[in-house]
């Protein structure tokens, strides 16, 4: 038990000390938020604008957490592998799965921080006001929903080269964000893209809080699809790892 605990603590420290964290997880989402709610405004009436400000705040929180899940975890795992550290772990009493879980825990602490900071930015910059329950539920959804993308990160982490992993995770992350409607509202996109979105985990992820801030509860469909993707990514990741062990 101690092993798991200490390993998690160490990973939290590593995650917080990562210099890219501030840039990717905080600065960029907050900048986007300012640009798309303060600089450009698409809405004529105040009620629509207020809803958009809350909606886009959720988009950016989801965007930030999804990004750090896919990119940071994936790239770090590949880096550790390339630097011989994963191999070294195999001759220590720390099982590889504990190491991967610690990475996820470390990243989740970062996610809590990101969610809080981005929510605060919304409340301060645009006076986004939601019921306490809505804030909490949205935050919890974004935090736990990120498991899907952490699993996707471990899948990226099975790659052998940092360059490939970084390229692939960038494309995945930006593609998922764009097509899932995190940057632009879905109804501003062509219907074909809207149809594609309903098959992407990013859409189902962000749709949870989008519904919550409108006073609805997330669709069962969203939860179901997220679970399907989680299982898919986990099974693939475990399968590929098993296969690589055979060397």
């Amino acid at each position, binding site marked *: 038990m*101690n*092993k798991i605990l*200490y*390993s998690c603590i*160490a990973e939290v*420290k*590593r*995650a917080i*000390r*990562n210099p890219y964290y501030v840039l990717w997880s905080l600065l960029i989402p907050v900048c986007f938020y300012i640009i798309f709610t303060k600089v450009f405004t698409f809405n004529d009436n105040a009620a629509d604008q207020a809803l958009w400000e809350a909606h886009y705040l959720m988009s950016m929180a989801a965007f930030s957490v999804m990004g750090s899940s896919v990119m940071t975890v994936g790239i770090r795992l590949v880096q*550790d592998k390339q*630097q*011989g*550290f994963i*191999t*070294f772990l*195999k*001759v*220590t*009493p*720390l099982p590889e799965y504990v190491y991967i879980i610690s990475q996820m825990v470390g990243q989740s602490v970062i996610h809590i921080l990101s969610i809080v900071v981005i929510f605060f930015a919304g409340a301060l910059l645009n006076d986004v006001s939601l019921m306490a329950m809505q804030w909490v539920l949205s935050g919890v959804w974004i935090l736990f929903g990120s498991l899907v993308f952490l699993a996707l990160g471990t899948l990226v982490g099975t790659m052998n080269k940092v360059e490939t992993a970084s390229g692939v995770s960038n494309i995945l992350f930006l593609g998922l964000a764009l097509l899932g409607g995190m940057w632009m509202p879905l109804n501003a996109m062509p219907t074909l893209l809207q149809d594609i979105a309903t098959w992407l985990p990013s859409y189902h992820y962000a749709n949870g809080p989008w519904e919550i801030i409108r006073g609805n509860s997330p669709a069962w469909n969203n939860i179901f699809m997220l679970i399907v993707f989680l299982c898919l990514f986990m099974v693939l990741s475990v399968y590929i790892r098993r296969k690589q062990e*055979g*060397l």
Partner: protein
Amino acid sequence: MEDTIVYAHKLSKTFKQKEAVRNVSFSIAKGEVVAMLGPNGAGKTTTLSLVLGLLKPTKGKVQVFQQPPQSMHVRERIGVMLQEVRMMDGLKTKEMLQLFRSYYPNPLALSEMIALTGLADADLTKKVEKLSGGQRRRVNFAVCLAGDPDFIVLDEPTAGMDTTSRAKFWKTIHHLAERGKTILFSTHYLQEADDTAKRIILLHQGQKIADRATEEIKHQLSRQYVSFRLNGKLNRAKLDMPDVLAIEEREERIYLETKNTDALISYIMQHFSNAYDLRIDKGSMDDVFETLVQGSREK
């Protein structure tokens, strides 16, 4: 059997086309210090990886502490230093030493680990990635000993160390050996194997070509010669004595192979008044190596 730490039986490993290790068997008893010696590409890293369970043998079988090398019991009792491992960036050195201690049932005292790294307090609070290459090697060595292991495996441990750290490192190894630790290390420096190990396993092109006590290898194969020039013809009958192992004449010199150069020199001075330009040629470890490699080719 109780005292067998490593049992490797007919290990072979083939990567795609390349046969990196072929039919290598050996066992290591408790308390032994064994060097795996061979030039680059000989198969040292591959053999050690097989012993550690990092690679699956294509053929053959290996046990450590009578168990498969991947088992938790083994992992808790071994300490390993691999070539080129970069540790966890973002952690301070001391934090990382603490972390690895927490993985073992009977860890080494933190103060002892710190002493092993030889790092100053200022460096202990530096992040691992800020350390120099040599400092990192020593931190890896401290991590290797975090669990106070009974069996220590080191793959070319001194690569990248300067002369001072190297001397300090071997001193520590001697210390550990005195405390009864079993040690297996690879090197391509003959001198290191000779200085530290009581037994040498010699690898060449993936095969084991010798496995004997260091002294024995040196004694048997460090050929020593007494050579001299002669005014006149050699009377071979006068050299028919036990100290002379072989006689060879080339380039107007007479070479006598012997194990006792001192006795032979005084014999020649006494009995060959026409001998001059006496010389002793002792084989170095490099010659031993050459001889062994050649011997294995001829077989």
